[in-house]
């Protein structure tokens, strides 16, 4: 690891820690410097912030609608009260018992999150929203009936370290809550920038795209729900200990709705915005109370803000960040993040790679049927290691179906694929990706919420160093690693996708019309770079492309598909001069 790398990595870990220490100092000042009532309110702000942070993970980052955040809080509060009041665990570890109980209660909420996450593997969007709202309503009814343990026994929920439930105790409790909040913020920050976080952002944008990077979609969704529920559960425990008597009214489903809308308005996946949301959640009703205005106006304000945020498809946090980013780029004199492919010196003289002669992929008698439609029949071909195979054919010939079958999206196909001696039968998409089989997409499947560098890091499963990432981005003429993908144009995103998958150094990379967004000159430049890829990165390539100039300039062998069958396969010049191929491509009348 170079020195420069170490300092950037160090800064990435160090800065949040410094902010955490500053936040803790401010919290201590708050706890002992402000009036008791304000301190009590500030505790509620932090509790709301924690609930919003949890919601930010599942809704903001992973893009799944959850309308039950306070249900997780209620489960956390209920379990914590039960353990603290009805079991010996309440006093077993002295002042530290509370922390144990809090963690167990968080885990209990996480289990519920996992259970709700299971249907989310098949249910998306609105269906998931109906489901979470339904669970929230059912849980609400249940809590009404069984009530909270403090109501059965009339014992109050104890606070950590036996802080009393008086103004002095409130100050210590605020500090405790601040410490927990800061720890959760750090946890969320590091999770967001970890592989888990990248997988959440990726799954929010495209499940297929996520799976083909070797990440299990199932895992990404379940971790998002569980982490979110765990954090929600913690917020419930803290709330229960703060107000020491809770009931179902504390966790009404309508407040979950308000929290969801607030998460959308503020952009709760961003930590500062979760704090802002927490302040809004507490301050708006508090101001209304001071002026004698009914509290319902608070929810009306949230609802109107929510409609505004949803209809303009934006949130405050992202808007602020985007405008700062734009201003900085302007100051540095950069335009939009566009970089064209420069001329590669000596590019024309790079030979077309012919490979090592060893067969990397064998395809035997592969067929795919969609009902009565035979999309692929008896497809048999070999791909030589270190070569570039061109897969061409008219629209509807079955090229993309072939790629889908090869990469695992069509498990019902017949025949067999063998990659480097390993049969792919029965392997899931992400398992095939892990075996060294990667693909890119015709559609834009690059999550715009990541930076270019974070995306490459995610696609390579963290295997490439920062220097390697910079090198491959530069090689393909992509924007620098720190550029947010949201400012990159769609054509260049395709190049970023290709660069990232090359950086992952798979054995076999399937490029599905990678140059569709590029100009003709860029096609040629792209082709020259592609010719270098097998030798430079050790990656064998199958390329689907309509531009025959590009195919001619990079492929040593070509397979032509027509009506789902192999029309011709073999050396480039032989295939391209085959009269059958010309007929399929040009049509018979053109031949006359």
């Amino acid at each position: 690891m170079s020195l420069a790398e170490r300092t950037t990595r160090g800064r990435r870990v160090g800065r949040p820690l410094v902010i955490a220490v500053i936040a803790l100092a401010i919290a201590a000042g708050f706890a002992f410097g402000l009036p008791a009532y304000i301190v009590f309110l500030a505790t509620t702000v932090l509790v709301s912030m924690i609930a919003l942070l949890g919601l930010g993970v599942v809704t903001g980052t992973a893009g799944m609608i959850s309308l039950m955040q306070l249900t997780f809080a209620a489960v956390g509060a209920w379990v914590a009260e039960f353990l603290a009041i009805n079991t010996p665990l309440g006093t077993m570890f002295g002042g530290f018992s509370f922390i144990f109980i809090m963690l167990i209660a968080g885990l209990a909420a996480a289990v519920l999150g996992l259970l709700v996450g299971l249907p989310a593997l098949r249910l998306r969007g609105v269906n998931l929203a109906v489901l979470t709202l339904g669970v929230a309503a059912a849980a609400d009814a249940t809590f009404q009936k069984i009530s909270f343990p403090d109501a059965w026994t009339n014992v109050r929920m104890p606070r950590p370290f036996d802080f009393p439930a008086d103004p002095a105790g409130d100050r210590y409790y605020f500090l405790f809550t601040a410490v927990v909040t800061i720890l959760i913020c750090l946890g969320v920050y590091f999770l967001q920038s970890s592989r888990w976080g990248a997988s959440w952002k990726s799954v929010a944008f495209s499940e297929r795209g996520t799976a083909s990077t070797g990440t299990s979609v199932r895992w990404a969704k379940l971790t998002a729900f569980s982490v979110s529920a765990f954090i929600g559960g913690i917020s419930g425990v803290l709330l229960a200990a703060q107000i020491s008597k809770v009931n179902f009214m504390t966790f009404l489903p309508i407040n979950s709705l308000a929290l969801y809308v607030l998460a959308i308005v503020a952009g709760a996946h961003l930590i500062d915005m979760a704090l802002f949301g927490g302040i809004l959640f507490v301050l708006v009703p508090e101001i209304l109370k001071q002026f004698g205005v009914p509290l319902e106006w608070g929810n009306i304000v949230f609802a109107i803000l929510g409609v505004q945020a949803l209809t303009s498809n934006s949130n405050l946090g992202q808007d602020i960040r985007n405008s700062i980013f734009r201003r900085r780029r302007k100051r540095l004199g950069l335009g939009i993040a566009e970089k064209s492919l420069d001329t590669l010196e000596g590019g024309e003289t790079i030979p077309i790679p012919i490979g090592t002669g060893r067969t990397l992929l064998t395809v035997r008698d592969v067929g795919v049927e969609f009902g009565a439609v035979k999309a692929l029949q008896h497809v048999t071909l070999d791909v030589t290691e270190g070569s570039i195979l061109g897969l061409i054919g008219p629209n509807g010939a079955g090229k993309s179906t072939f790629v889908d079958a090869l990469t695992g999206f069509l498990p019902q196909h017949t025949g067999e694929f063998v990659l480097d001696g390993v049969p792919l039968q029965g392997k899931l998409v992400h398992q095939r990706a892990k075996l060294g089989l990667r693909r890119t997409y015709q559609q834009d499947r690059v999550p715009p919420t990541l930076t270019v560098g974070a995306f490459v890091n995610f696609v390579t499963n963290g295997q490439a160093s920062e220097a390697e990432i910079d090198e491959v981005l530069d090689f393909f003429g992509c924007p620098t690693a720190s550029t947010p993908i949201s400012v990159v144009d769609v054509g260049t995103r395709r190049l970023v996708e290709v660069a990232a998958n090359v950086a992952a150094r798979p054995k076999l990379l399937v490029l599905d019309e990678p140059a569709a967004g590029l100009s003709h000159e860029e096609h040629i430049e792209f082709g020259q770079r592609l010719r270098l890829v097998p030798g430079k990165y050790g990656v064998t390539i199958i390329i689907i492309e309509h531009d025959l100039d590009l195919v001619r300039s990079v492929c040593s062998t070509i397979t032509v598909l027509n009506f789902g069958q192999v029309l011709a396969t073999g050396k480039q010049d032989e295939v391209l001069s085959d009269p059958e191929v010309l007929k399929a491509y040009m049509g018979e009348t053109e031949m006359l």
Partner: protein
Amino acid sequence: MAIIGALAAGLGAGGLYAVIGVCLVLMATLTRVINFSQVAVGVYAAFLAIRFVPLGVPPWGIVLIALIVGAAVSALLGWIIATWLPEATGTARSAVTVAGLLFFLSVSYLQFGTRPQALVPLVSGPLVSFGVVTITKLSLALILLAVALAVVSKLVLTKTPLGVQLRAISDRQTAAELIGINVKVLQIGVWAFTGAVMALAISFAGNSQAANAGVMVNLIIPGAAAALIGAFKRMDLAIIGGILLGGIQGLLTAIPSINLLRDWIPIIIIVIFLLWSQRKEVWDVAR
């Protein structure tokens, strides 16, 4: 016999679920919105209308006011969505209605307080009675409303020029716009229509179901369960689903030992049904 009695007692609720379900199906197919605020709009309209009872407005006048208010506030939400999210995904459009639900519920609390409202059902009393088994007039009225709504909607959609335009919007919105159909006006019309129907249904059912606005809007959940049985596409299945759901809930009241489970029945039905119908939806997009 007691069990059949309990089953019959659930029919009233079932009829209401069916009406909500049919409204949700209409909204989903014609405007690409799963309308979370569907019930809240009806509740708000019905609660507002009964403010006019002390002024001596006759019952039909009260219902008329509820219909107008329901249509108007629903159209307002529809106008917002049709204006600012014309091309957005169904999910984004539906998310706005979550904010709408929050809005209408809060406005209801604000205007009418959190106490139960004196919303008297339009029809009441038993229709027929065999021993402990009683079918109320209200059950029949609500079920008839749901069936009538489905039949009329089906007839309009299949037999009239308006229906052809609505189906065109439903299938291919952009193509419909290109041939000169006024998508926005028609979609807002659908919003107004379902808002009025919901106001009518809530006026019919009255407060026999629940207490304040907050409890009443929870009806959206069994209503959505009914619509889901029809996959948000088929009104007939939504009606059957709604009635079944109400019947099952009624049945469960006869078994006090599973009191807690009763609240979970709609959601469990939703989950099982959705998982079954979406079992092949392994990926988010078809390709």
